């Protein structure tokens, strides 16, 4: 290899080479093109962030884009040219999400408190909208332009069009006998039959509000069925100076409390809330709230037990197989090895789902073949379910330890064992005093890494048991085999159910702390830092 590059270095061929290497060649053009694309994307992101008034995203985009241009068009930022792309993704999707987790953990972000305060006020105003009594009903046609839908109505033969963002404005168009617009300039009229067929479109239409004018007090047009529109007006009025919402019908005044909810002077609350800082409440809730404390304690205990038992059992089994089959006298060792590690090569999520079927008490193959058709409810009983999880994870991970231990055994110095043998040490003594300690030195860091991995092994738990069977002494959706990460998943409600992002994020922080401590141990073990 090295001869290829160093050979042309001597005098006669330098000329040809320097000509080939230098100059603003294709590389520069490629860089220019790439940077044009990056800048185009960046600028459009900045513009849409401006339009959406998302200031954090706007700021981040400007900074990231400016740094990108600076890095790639300056001659001085050489190492950064290579690190920057990965760094951007790392910062946004790993560093930021970790910081954001810490922030969410101190809020009551979740169901009922999932927007900012100004959005919550808007939502409250919309929720309080009522049909204005005596409002005329306008003949309506739903119109669309690409993805935007709007309302076209006619008043005395004059067609007006508006969308969610634009209030009603006059346009050219034609109406039929009933006054319903049939042709609208610049818009495509959606036939009523389409609304009946397309559920998603129908939902969008019933949710659409078109402001009658720029004045919010004029109310907005809404429709129930897609053929007539009526004027709706909110019964609530927002008083910005007093920071209150007043119900004009009942006279109740709603004031914001420090929990992110509007409370009326009659004690009632508005459903729309916003998230506020609650300090360490989520952490204390996890420990003291009777609904959460006990299940979470059991989940935590099982998380540690699961991670430790998985590592120990699969390590021991893998080590045993490695010792037994690291034997020169055996024939076909390569084939055996390949067959032994089959479970490891099989995608883990498919394994867990497959075992879920095989362990099914009614038709599962395990009961039928190995337990003579007994009705053992493997995944329905708390202790059996825990055992099943450990068993399946053992199946999944012993091959890893088999491979690692085989490698470690083969790299052990044979002199030490020889010497022990000459000193009269028996086979067990050799293993206990020499082989095993030496093996531990090289495999302990991997064992710690494996512990950290299994501590967060969501896939196996969720795919095999869904965390079940459920605890029956609590309403929290947790179960006997839930580990912390799957408990966080259930509590967060990202996949349905009642959302409590604050508590979920607080538990994520707990997991981070545990993983951090474990990693610090691994760190000291491997002393990786000394390598560079």
């Amino acid at each position, binding site marked *: 290899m090295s001869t290829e590059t160093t050979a042309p270095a001597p005098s006669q061929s330098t000329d040809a080479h320097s000509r080939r290497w230098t100059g603003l060649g294709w590389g520069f053009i490629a860089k220019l093109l790439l940077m044009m694309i990056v800048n185009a994307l960046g600028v459009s*992101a900045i513009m849409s962030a401006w339009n959406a008034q998302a200031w954090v995203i706007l700021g981040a985009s400007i900074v990231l884009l400016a740094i990108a241009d600076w890095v790639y068009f300056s001659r001085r930022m050489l190492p950064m040219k290579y690190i920057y792309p990965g760094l951007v993704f790392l910062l946004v999707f790993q560093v930021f999400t970790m910081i954001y987790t810490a922030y969410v953990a101190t809020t009551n972000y979740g169901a009922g408190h999932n927007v900012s305060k100004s959005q919550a006020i808007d939502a409250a105003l919309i929720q309080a909208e009522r049909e204005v009594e005596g409002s005329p009903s306008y003949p309506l046609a739903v119109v669309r332009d690409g993805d935007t839908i709007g309302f076209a109505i006619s008043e005395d033969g004059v067609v007006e069009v508006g969308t969610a963002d634009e209030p009603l404005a006059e346009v050219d168009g034609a109406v039929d006998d009933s006054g319903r617009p049939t042709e609208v300039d610049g818009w495509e009229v959606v036939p009523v039959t389409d609304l009946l067929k397309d559920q998603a479109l129908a939902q969008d239409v019933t949710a659409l509000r078109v402001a009658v004018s720029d004045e919010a007090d004029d109310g907005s047009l809404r429709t129930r069925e897609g053929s007539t529109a009526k004027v709706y007006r909110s019964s609530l009025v927002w008083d910005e100076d007093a920071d209150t919402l007043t119900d004009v019908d009942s006279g109740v005044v709603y004031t914001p409390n420090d929990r992110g909810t509007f409370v009326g002077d009659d004690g009632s609350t508005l459903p729309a809330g916003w998230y506020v800082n609650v300090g360490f409440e989520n952490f204390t809730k996890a420990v003291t709230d009777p609904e959460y404390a006990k299940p979470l304690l059991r989940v935590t205990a099982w998380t540690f037990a699961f991670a430790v038992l998985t590592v120990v059992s699969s390590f021991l089994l893998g080590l045993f197989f490695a010792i037994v089959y690291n034997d020169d006298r055996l024939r076909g060792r390569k084939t055996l090895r390949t067959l032994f590690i089959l479970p490891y*090569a099989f995608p883990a999520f498919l394994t867990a789902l497959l075992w879920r079927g095989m362990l099914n008490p009614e038709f599962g193959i395990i009961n039928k073949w190995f337990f003579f058709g007994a009705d053992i409810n493997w995944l329905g009983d708390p202790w059996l379910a825990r055992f099943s999880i450990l068993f399946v994870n053992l199946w999944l991970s012993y091959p890893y330890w088999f491979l690692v231990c085989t490698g470690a055994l083969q790299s052990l110095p044979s002199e030490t064992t020889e010497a022990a043998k000459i000193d009269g040490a028996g086979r067990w003594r050799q293993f206990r005093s020499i082989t095993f300690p030496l093996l531990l030195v090289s495999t302990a860091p991997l064992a710690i890494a494996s512990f950290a*991995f299994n501590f967060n092994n969501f896939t196996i738990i969720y795919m095999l048991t869904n965390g079940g069977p459920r605890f029956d002494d609590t309403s929290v959706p947790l179960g006997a085999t839930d580990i912390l990460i799957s408990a966080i998943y259930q509590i967060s409600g990202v996949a349905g159910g009642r959302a409590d992002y604050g508590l979920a994020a607080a538990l994520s922080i707990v997991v981070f702390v545990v993983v951090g401590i474990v990693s610090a141990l691994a760190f000291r073990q491997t002393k990786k830092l000394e390598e560079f």
Partner: protein
Amino acid sequence: MATTAPTTSSTHRRQPTRRSRWWLEVGWKYPLAAVIIFYAAFPLVFVLSASLDERGSLAGTQRLFGSISLNNYQELNDTLFWTWVGNTLIIGIAAAIGAVLMGAAAAYAFSRFRFKGRRTSLTGLLILQMFPQTVAFVAVFLLLISLGEVIPALGINSKIALICVYLGTALGANTFLMYGFFNSIPMEMDEAAKIDGASHSQIFWGMIIPLVRPVLAVVGLLAFISAFGDFILARIILVSSENWTLAVGMYQWVSDQLTARWGIFSAGTVIAALPVLVLFLALQRYIVGGLTAGSVKG
């Protein structure tokens, strides 16, 4: 070897001793191997048999390969299975290519350039990569909701967003694995190329990249497998069924006990797992090396 010495000396006295000794030391390992292989392989054989069963349920399976039919495989065509395969391939391959390029570039910078903050950044990466991204999934979810309002392509239910989230771990997970490998290429080669007038980018693309191809393959494969096997992020980010990956879609097939479709699940499993299985076994030497160095497990 030393243990065989007394055996040979006693052979001429009694023949059966040698045989029983062989059984004691070596022979018993073959029956044990058969047991282990049964343990390792029977679920795989079972799923193959179930996928060929014509009734399409685990319930009817009385014995292995009781009936051979391709019904289940044909039924896959009536589902979104092939769409999911396509999504998984797109997401996995994009994540793999991104991880390889970004990891290699960063490793090149750390290995070849001496700059201020180099040690600190390396340590920082080492610490960061220990915190699994999946634990922060709530924040990822909320971040994508906000991002999606500005840039729809980076919002919830976008494959691009999922790829970007996966790429967030590219630097942390792979730089170290590659860094060691890059360091094993002598600096003198860079010097020689530099004397020939090569720029840093020409050295990187023209010389280093071809030399480190094996480690690129390992990193790419590991990134692909981890994207292939990820459930939690794919599940919360990809909402509509035509965007799902295999992990999300196939979970949906069997998650509900009453409507579980084990027949097509088995057929899908065989199709989805076979390429991974073959690839893994073919490259097992490299992968195990990579796993040991990077301490991750698919």
